[in-house]
């Protein structure tokens, strides 16, 4: 089944190219976006696309290690999103309660 494996590889290659292009289109919203939450939303979308790219690369190379890489990227994306949201809201990231 050499042709079928070649077809799977071709489909994954096309998917990698398309998702990379989608990252560039999200970059347009990062640059242009009128408000700060716009940019944060676009960066979150880029991060999720990069997670998809890591899984597609794992599919392409057949190495399961890159699935773990995608998981770590998802964690970093979530942390950065929450951090920026808290910073935009409160002007500080680690807030200390005043009452003991």
């Amino acid at each position, binding site marked *: *089944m050499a042709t*079928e*494996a070649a*077809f*799977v*590889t071709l*489909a*994954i290659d096309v*998917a990698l190219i*398309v*998702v990379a292009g*989608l990252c560039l*289109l*999200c970059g*347009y*919203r990062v640059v242009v976006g009128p*408000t*700060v*939450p*716009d940019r*944060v*939303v*676009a960066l*979150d*979308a880029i991060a*999720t*696309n990069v*997670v*998809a790219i890591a*899984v*597609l690369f*794992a*599919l*392409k*190379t*057949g190495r*399961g*290690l890159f*699935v*773990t890489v*995608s*998981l770590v990227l*998802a*964690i970093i*994306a*979530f942390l950065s*999103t*929450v951090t*920026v*949201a*808290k910073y*935009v*809201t409160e002007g500080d990231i680690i807030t200390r309660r005043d009452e003991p």
Partner: protein
Amino acid sequence: MSAAEATGLAGIAVVALVVIGVFFLTVGTIGLLRLPNVYNRMHATSKPTTLGTAAIFFAGFVQFGPGGAGLTSLVGIVFLFLTVPTGAHMISRAAQKTGVPFLSGVTWPAEDSDEGGEKAAARAAEDDDAETPES
């Protein structure tokens, strides 16, 4: 090294899931580019992007089998479904608190009830995220 090991039915399933995932990612990006407001853009990106990445993760599960990297793929799906709505909700609350204007005819629900306002606002943000506001 091109070691796409999936052949036969698994190969077809991998290709179908990857196509579904790329379709949903494309829909999310088009919505991010074309919708008029932060909240609408967030609505457009959070759900289709989650679905698309979950489909690609599931393709990874199909290829790598139920142990090792396939199990990691399932963990990734669960993690995405937990974190992406949480992040979108926090950004939407931040946008509302910093005063990003809504479209005309759209209000933040439960603005008038101060008591229990936190919970009501949280539920309202989920609702606001879940349905397209008609202007």
